[in-house]
Each structure stands twice: as structure tokens, then as C-alpha cells.
């Protein structure tokens, strides 16, 4: 009997397995079909059945958002009134991936916003890990409640986020008049950073670029030219006593100023050209080997070690961005910030990143949340008081014209911020295209290899190797480009 039961249960088991596999496969197929075919067939957003007249501008209302007066549509105007008077309740999620001291200051901005518009609740998460992946996953899964509606990061994510459809364009939801009013509020480089393929995607509120940070205990007057800087570096450099002329980490982002000074570049998205192995790029790297590397602690070129060299007072200069300022201030070194000085008539132009506020696709079908997200982004990027607070407390470099003006009128009050701001005005914004993500790794490899050559065989061997390694990198990146398209 036992045999039989065993035999029966085995047959049943096999049968069930087969059935479930079939069901599973069928369900899988159905699921993929479902994914490909949107269940609802949304009509084109605006269908002018009756042909609109020449300029279909609906009635516009002027409204004060933050410190700016802009023209908005009637819908949006009514929405603002309602949330201001607490007649309408909306909640939105706001995500950032920031350091703790930045988060506490942004939290203040969020609180001020909520007290001005009591109808809107902003659920703020300050330190999101893997923010990009988390947002992508949330949008794909359409997880409206647990994913960001508004988030902020440097503008180089724009291409990837916009092409993938994770963020919405403000141009699709705001009348042209609003867009032109917004445009006049920011410095040109910042507004342009938010525009991708002609559409405005993100509102700028801060920027960052690397600059020359000077230890005022060691150097009283900032160098005006690179030759002056070189003299000071030579004077301080003494590796045997663990003292150096400059603290400067090695990676493609940090090295860029010296590459652009000679006319070199990595990737130009306007013409879709790759300049990794151009002679100008080669010259820039050669300059770095000859005039900077001898004065740097080359035993460890990582960020942490280079920062330590500066905070220990073992170097008069560090080339770095605003993010390191709190650590430097903490050890009490008096500093001044200036743009990296010109090399003769050549201007070193660093990469700059513009921090943008983006709105995710998740709110596109929920008008109240959409408006709340837009209002929040506008208010955040247009409010002079809050932006000033962020400058003073967290050292964020402003991009709104009125604040930049204010900064320039009070340069002596802002020795650090105005230095970075000046560096930004001469900077080159990072490319927005996703193609740039194929560039970093290979250029970094090439730099590492050149540096290995430098430390094992000396500067001449390193200079001779530049071309080989840059060619390798160029070739490898081109392969990745071709695989993509």
C-alpha cells in the first residue's frame, strides 16, 4: 500500500509541477505583454478639436513665489491660494542625498515652506542611499507613496533621467510666460543646465565647482598667476618632512581645469565628439605631471589623504570643492578661496555641477501633487531668504541672480562663497548626456596608468606614455559608444 501512495503522490507531484510551470510561463508571457501594452490609452494631452487661434494664451495671473513675481495660469494661481489658506491638503515626498549638516539646513527650508503653505505637507528624506536607483525603481513600479516626487542632484543626471522618462518637463505643464519669467531669475549657466533637448526639466538652486583653497596661515596673499602659485609650492614642498606644495586628488573630474586650460576636453555633447586623446588633452596632462605632481604627496592621491595633508597644515593649497569646507573649518584653518589662477593667458576651467530640483513622473497624473511639487521647486529656488540662509549656514553656492549680486556687493563678507562663485562663472558644466558615464571609467584608468608610470619610471617615462594610454582610453570609450547606439 505504501508503495502505491508513494507512486500516486509522485505522479501527482510531477503533474502539479508541469501545470505550475505552464501556468507560470503563461503568466510570465501575459505579464510581459501587459508591460508592453499600456492598459489605459491616454489621449494626446491637448487635442485642439476646434483649431485654436494664433496665440492660445489663457488668462495669466501674477503671483509672488519666494522673492520673485512670475506669471502663472489660472489653475495654478487658484491652487496656490487654496494651499496658502489651508483649504486643500496635499502631501509630497522630497528626497536628497546629502551630508547631515546640509540636511538640517534643508529641513529648515522645508519647514518654512510648510508654514507659508500650510496646505502642503512635505515629507523630507535627507540621506537617501543610491538615490538614482531608488527613484528609477519607484517610478517603474509606479510606487507613488514611497518614492520621491521632488528630488535634487547635480545636473549631469538630466540626460539619463529625462531619456528614461523618470522626470517630467516643466515646459509640458507651465505656460511659456511662466518659463520666460523663471528664466530671468537665474544666472544663464544655471538655467541652461536645467534645459535638455529644448525643454526645461529642473530648477537650479545651487552650484559647485572646484577652486583653489588657500591656508592663510601659510600664504598671506592669494597667487594671481600660476607662476606665483608655483613659487609658493616650491617654497613649501619638502617631502622628507612630509610637507607638500599642494593637496590635489587625482581623478578625471579634478584634473579637468588643467586639460581645458590647454583647450582639451573629454566629451563635447554639442557636437557628440570625444576628445580624450586630443593633443590638447595630452598637453594638459603633461602640464600636470611637470608642474603639479612634483609638489603633491604622490604616495596616496586619494581624496581622504589629500584632504588630510591640507587639514594637517602640511600644504598651503588644496584644489577642491565646497563639500570639503566644513571639514577644513572644523580644524580651524583660516582659508580663502580663489579660482585656479591663469597659466599665462590660459584659463583653467573646472567642471561645474548645478544642483537642480526635479519632479518625478509619478505625480504627472495627480494634478494637486503635480502643482504642489512645482510650487515647492519654484519656492525653493526663488526664495532669497532661504537661499541666503543656505549660503551662510551650509555654504551652498547660489545661482539666483539677486543672491549672486548680493554676494558680489559683499565680497569681503563671503571670502569662501564668492571664491567658489567666481570659479563657477568660468566653469564648464558637466555634460548632461548619458554617454558621459562611459567616459569617466576609462579616463580614470588612463590617468592611473600614467601615474603608475610616473611613480615607477619617472616623469619622462610618464610623459612619453600619455599618448598610448589616452589612445587606449579613447578606443575603449568609442567601443562603448558604438555598442550603445
Amino acid at each position: 500500500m505504501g508503495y502505491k501512495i508513494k507512486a500516486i503522490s509522485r505522479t501527482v507531484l510531477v503533474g502539479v509541477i508541469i501545470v505550475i510551470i505552464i501556468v507560470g510561463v503563461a503568466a510570465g508571457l501575459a505579464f510581459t505583454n501587459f508591460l508592453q501594452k499600456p492598459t489605459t490609452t491616454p489621449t494626446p494631452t491637448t487635442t485642439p478639436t476646434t483649431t485654436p487661434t494664433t496665440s492660445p494664451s489663457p488668462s495669466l495671473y501674477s503671483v509672488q513665489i519666494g522673492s520673485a513675481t512670475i506669471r502663472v495660469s489660472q489653475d495654478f494661481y487658484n491652487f496656490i491660494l487654496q494651499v496658502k489658506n489651508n483649504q486643500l491638503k496635499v502631501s509630497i515626498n522630497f528626497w536628497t542625498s546629502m551630508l547631515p549638516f546640509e540636511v538640517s539646513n534643508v529641513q529648515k527650508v522645508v519647514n518654512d515652506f510648510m508654514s507659508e503653505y500650510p496646505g502642503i505637507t512635505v515629507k523630507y528624506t535627507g540621506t537617501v542611499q543610491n538615490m538614482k536607483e531608488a527613484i528609477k525603481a519607484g517610478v517603474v513600479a509606479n510606487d507613488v507613496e514611497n518614492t520621491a516626487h521632488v528630488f535634487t542632484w547635480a545636473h549631469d543626471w538630466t540626460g539619463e533621467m529625462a531619456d528614461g522618462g523618470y522626470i517630467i518637463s516643466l515646459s509640458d505643464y507651465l505656460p511659456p510666460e511662466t518659463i520666460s519669467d523663471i528664466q530671468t531669475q537665474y544666472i544663464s549657466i544655471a538655467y541652461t543646465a536645467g534645459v535638455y533637448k529644448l525643454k526645461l526639466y529642473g530648477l537650479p538652486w545651487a552650484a559647485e565647482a572646484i577652486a583653489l583653497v588657500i591656508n592663510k596661515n601659510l600664504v598671506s596673499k592669494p597667487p594671481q598667476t600660476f607662476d606665483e602659485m608655483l613659487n609658493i609650492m616650491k617654497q613649501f614642498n619638502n617631502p622628507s618632512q612630509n610637507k607638500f606644495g599642494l593637496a590635489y586628488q587625482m581623478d578625471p573630474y579634478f584634473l579637468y581645469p588643467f586639460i581645458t586650460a590647454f583647450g582639451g576636453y573629454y566629451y563635447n555633447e554639442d557636437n557628440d565628439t570625444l576628445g580624450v586623446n586630443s593633443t590638447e588633452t595630452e598637453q594638459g596632462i603633461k602640464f600636470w605631471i611637470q608642474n603639479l605632481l612634483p609638489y603633491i604627496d604622490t604616495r596616496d592621491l586619494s581624496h581622504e589623504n589629500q584632504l588630510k595633508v591640507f587639514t594637517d597644515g602640511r600644504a598651503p593649497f588644496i584644489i577642491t570643492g565646497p563639500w570639503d569646507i566644513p571639514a577644513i573649518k572644523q580644524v580651524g584653518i583660516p582659508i580663502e578661496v580663489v579660482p585656479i589662477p591663469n597659466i599665462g593667458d590660459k584659463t583653467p576651467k573646472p567642471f561645474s555641477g548645478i544642483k537642480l530640483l526635479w519632479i518625478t513622473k509619478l505625480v504627472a497624473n495627480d494634478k494637486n501633487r503635480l502643482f504642489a511639487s512645482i510650487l515647492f521647486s519654484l519656492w525653493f529656488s526663488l526664495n532669497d531668504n532661504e537661499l541666503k540662509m543656505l549660503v551662510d549656514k551650509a555654504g551652498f553656492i547660489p545661482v539666483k541672480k539677486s543672491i549672486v549680486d548680493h554676494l558680489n556687493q559683499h565680497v569681503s563678507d563671503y571670502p569662501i562663497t564668492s571664491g567658489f562663485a567666481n570659479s563657477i562663472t568660468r566653469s564648464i558644466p558637466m555634460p548632461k548626456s548619458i554617454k558621459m558615464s562611459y567616459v569617466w571609467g576609462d579616463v580614470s584608468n588612463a590617468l592611473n596608468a600614467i601615474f603608475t608610470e610616473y611613480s615607477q619610471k619617472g616623469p619622462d617615462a610618464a610623459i612619453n606614455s600619455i599618448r598610448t594610454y589616452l589612445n587606449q582610453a579613447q578606443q575603449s570609450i568609442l567601443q562603448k559608444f558604438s555598442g550603445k547606439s
Partner: protein
Amino acid sequence: MTKRLEIYPKKVALLLCSISLFLYLFFLIWPISYSVFIAFTNANAVNIASDPKINELKTKLQHIENYLIKNKEFIISKVNEAENYINSTILELNLLHKYINNVNSKSFSIIKFDEYKQNINSNLTNAINIITSNSTNLYYYTDLRNNLDKVFNEIQKVWRDIDNIIGFKLTYTDDDINKIREIINNNQAIIQSYLTKSIENLIDIKNSYDNFIKTVTSDISNQIDSISLKFVGMDNFYTLFRDSRFPFSIFKTLLFILTSVPLKISVGLLLAFIFSSTMIYGRKVMRALLLIPWALPVLLSVTTWRMLFVPGQGFYAQIFSNISNYDFNIYLHEWDAFLVYNLVETWLAYPFVMTVTMGAIASVPKEYIEAAYIDGSNVFTRFRKIMLPLISRPVLFAAILTTGASIQAFMVPLLINNGGPTALLGFLNFPTALGNTNEVIILYGYNRAWLDQQYGLSTASFLIAVLILLVFAIIWFYFVYKRSFSR
């Protein structure tokens, strides 16, 4: 039989069966087959999760043709409007060009300049608004969009450069004016050429509207195509072996197994024997302390090890350099880093080997050893003839597991120096390529995914790692397990 059925009713059996099979299917078969599938696609950052955009574009594609046919008149009128705005932009640009070439530092007026700037900006913005508007769909005409995009970017660059010169000055020198003039003269031609191209695009639309519809639909299809995940067959595997990096990575992994496994086993064995001896006072406490590497989070302990080996500053790095009078540098020297990987890996794994071995030693009956002792055998004979054969199975078992861990080495090289240093790699007859000299297989896959965002390629490399593990498992099963355990 009826009683048996009561204990194991078929319904319950079926229920349990189907639940377990469901779990099996969706938590095992589906994820595994999906990741295997990814290895045969061109998955990258653009197409891995592009569903939101694809859905949006597909919806657009369904409706656009009808919409464009139905609203031809409206769109043509908008095209005319845009053309006017672009023509005005060209006109204003020429006026500015003329103005700037006829002023000097005294007659230059910033108000006048701003007026030109404002006019150019507003005309261009109006034109752009028509193109991006949802009601015209001109946005999907790629040529037009690209040309206008170039105009926008170039003009913004001009304003930016001029802003840098004018800054917040109240008076301007001749030099300033010359620089502004230079900027405008240098860029005017290129901006105008793109503006003219945009106008040509607009005229094309008017001349052959049917052609425009075709272009727009094919542009949208192309865009969908460019962000869709594609099956590429064995391409990723060819790519892996197209240059030296991956083959070298396999070689490095095998080498790492050859060096780290004997180290781990011998250190573990040695410590186990020492601390099994009753002659050591406080051995229980010491034994417990020796297990600490096991208990610490790998991230913390490996980072600490890296600190100790930071060239020139780390404690061990300095000692190593002083002893050998050699610049010990994990960031620059391939084999220094490799040595540190072995050290750290050994440090991480010896508690495991030690624990297993100690258990085995404890289970060896004392009588055997005593008997051998009485028979006159010395320490080494006792170890070789009695101890070793009796503990060989558990030690072998530990060795196999720890070999598996070595094949999958990842955290240690990643945290020590990310598989560096970088050099030109040439391995056997594979073409040379720039790569990290200590990038073991798993790290190679990780870097391809996180640095290069080539998920397909990355998965393919992981699949090969799985194959290597499989080969290892088969060897283990047929040549070791069957011989020593089935007896």
C-alpha cells in the same frame, strides 16, 4: 490505509506542494532565468528600466498620425509662426552684430545691449515654445529639435561669456568691448547657420506635409528602438574575450585561489593545534578572541586593513618598507596589493578553518593517541598517522568551502584598492588593454556594472564565474567527495 490518509490528506499535500512550487518558481526560477537572460542582452543604463518612456512614446506613436492629419491647418499655421520668430531672431542677431561692431567703450550702452539680448531671447523662446508645445508635436521632428537645441546652447554660451566680461562693472574699457565683439563675431556665423537650418526644416514641413508625418513617426520609432533592451546573442561573451582584461582577471582569480587557500588552511590548522593543547593557560579566552575576525563586519575590518597599509602612513606599510628597504605601496605595485589581499583573506577566513578543525580534533579519541604513545611513536608520527587521517575529512570540507570563497573574492580587493593598480594588460595572445591588474572576476563584473553601466556585459562575466564554480563543484564531487566520503 485510511488512517494514513487521515494523517496525510491529499488536499493538504497538494496545497503545500503548490505553495512550495510557487515559491520555487517565483523566487528561484524566475530571478535566475532573468539574470541569465540579461547576459544575452545589451542592457545598460539607458535601456534597463526605460518602460516609463517607452510607454509614453508608444502611446504617442499610436495617436500621432491621426492627430497630425486632422490638425494639418493648425500645425502649418504654427510652423509659419515659428518661422517668423526664427527670422526675427536672425534679424535681431544681425542688429546686435552691427551694433557691437560700431561702438567703442564710450558709446557702449548696457541698456541698449540688454535690449538686443532680450529681443533675441524672447523671439527664440517663442519659437522654442511652439516646437515643444504638445499641440504641435514638432518636438518629435528630431532634425528641427536638434538644430534649435544647438542654437539655444550656443546663444546661452555667448551670454555667459559676455556676462563674465561685463560682470558687475559700471564702466567698460576698450579691451572689454573688443572681447565682447570677438565673442559675438566668432559665434554669429554658427548660430545663424543653425537658425537657417531650422528654417529649412520648417519649410520642409510646409512643402511636404506627408513626408513630415513619416519622419516624425519614424523618429519616434527610432527613439523607442534606441531605448529598448535588445537580445544580442553571444555578443557579450565575445566582448569579454576581445581583449586581455577578462582573461587576465580569470588568471588572477585562479592565482589567488592557489595562494590564499593553502595560506588559510595552514594558518587555521596551526592555530587549531596550538589552541587545542591543554598546556596553554587561558586558551579558551584566547580561542574566543581569535574568532573576532569572523564576527566583525567585513566592511569595517577590511577598511581598517587598508588604513594600516596606506603607503607612507599606515603602520604596516611603514614597517614593511623599513624592513625591506623597498617602497611598499598597494596603490602602485601589483604584487604588493596581491600580498595584502592574501593577508586579509587569510585573516578573515582562519577562524572558520580553525573552528572546524578544532571540532575534529576534539572528536579524536584520546585512547588512540595514548596507544600510539605507548607504542613509542613520536609527535610527528602521531600527527601524521593518527591525527591527520582522522581530521582530514572536516578539513577537506573546510578547504572546499573556503576555496569557493576565494573564487568569489570581491570585498577585499574592492576595499583595499579596487583591484588596482592600473596598467596595460597583455595576456597570452589577447590584444592588450588598459585595466586593473588585480581585478578578480567578481570585481570585474561589479566594475563593469557600476563604473561602465554595461549590465549585460557584467552579467555575462558573472555567468562565467558561475561556470567556473560549477566546474569546481564537479571536480570536487567526482575526485574528492566520492573518493574520500563514499568509502
